């Protein structure tokens, strides 16, 4: 699956108990995004503050790809 420039949040969750390799990132928000270019993808939501969090239906835009993880933020 390729990242797209923008999409809409299909669902989301905030991970408090991470796998070993992402221990430093927690808590982090994951979202499954319906990309405007088509297809659905599991991504990270950038930011840790309450105002950074996304909800179902929110529009998000692509920020960067870091170590193979696609980051999006609320539009």
């Amino acid at each position, binding site marked *: 699956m390729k990242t797209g420039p923008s999409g809409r949040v299909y*669902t*989301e969750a905030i991970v408090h108990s991470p796998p*070993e*390799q992402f221990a430093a990132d927690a808590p982090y928000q994951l979202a*499954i995004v319906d990309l405007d270019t088509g297809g659905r993808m599991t991504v990270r939501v950038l930011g840790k503050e309450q105002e950074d969090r996304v909800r179902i239906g929110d529009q998000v835009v692509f920020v960067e790809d870091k170590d193979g993880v696609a980051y999006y933020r609320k539009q």
Partner: protein
Amino acid sequence: MGCIIAIPKPRHAETCGRIVNLDILTYMRPVAIIGIGKTAFGAFPDRDLRSLAVEAVEHALSDANVSAATVQAFYLGNFAGPAFVGQNHLAPYVGAATGFDGIPCTRLEDACASGGSAFFHAWMSVAAGMYDLVVAAGVEKMTSQSTPRVTEILAGAGDMAGEGRAGATFPALFAMIARRHMYQYGTTREQLAAVSVKNHANGAKNPLAHMRKVITLEQAMAGKPIAEPLTVYDCSLISDGAAAVVIVPLEQAARHTSRYARVKAVAQTSDRVALDSKSDITEFPAVKSAGQKAYAMAGIGPENIDVAELHDCFTIAEVIASEDLGFVAKGQGGPFAAAGCTAINGRIPINTSGGLKAKGHPVGATGVGQLCDVVLQLRGDAGERQVPRHRIGLTQNLGGSGATCVVTILEAA
């Protein structure tokens, strides 16, 4: 001049756009479970994987009144022995220690449905006429690893090239499922907590359960978040444990015991592994099709089930399974549980053992453990948690976020 051969038209049942050929049942032998055996589920620092599996198998053989030397094949469900304890080649490793004598010993891995898959394949081997006495078991030894490491190993049941790379854990995948179910159907945190309260109450009555602690709705609501919206009270336990069953052709069952259970149906199905590859994550197509196949094989419907063990790896999974298996309409699983319809004295008692939430979830053992728990109910041996009507029971064992499902329907002798 060609000759015309009349081929009898097979009886078909439509299930989810797929076809079940019921005629296959006329060629396959009916099968019965004649023995069940379980270890307690829990954290056992002084026990290794092999000793747990051997204990469960020995209990099952003794319950069936048969000796290890008469067993003709062994199927062992295990998810991640190599990662959890550094041991591979597990089926002969356990089999030889049990006293099996040169027979085929095979491990099956289908994530948390490994035990169900071991049973499905064991059943096939007896139903097909290959063997007359077979053991299906499951085992997992998880507690020797730290929680972050266990979380990482379990995440391997998802798609590690996609969701896993983004940081999805299993609690996170089911949290995303719960969030969507809440959005589409209005399911609430209270309704999920009610599932946890009910399973804890049942587990407190089960001497083999990992957690024998009654909790209140307030406690369940105030749990530490694991993956929002799920808290620690929505998540099953990290456990050590093993379970085993002995199966034979139905016509031979009474030779061994009067306490057998007939296997009316068993169906294993599959779906895509990645959650983001599914169109609607509020239902599991593999659960729906396994349920429909099993009901068609058994010639019954959900209204005929007296007691069920469903795969509550997370509270939302029990809610969705109760919908996918037809116990309640789509989207209504939350209110159904909150109203007490799934309690021991409810309309359809679900997880009288305490479920994965309270009984514990040694993942490879779970599918076989569910069978043991339902057979106990069918025999009327479930003690304090015995359901009033106990002629027909169902188990549903789920792998990953719905990529494998095994549904079994059992009937009391």
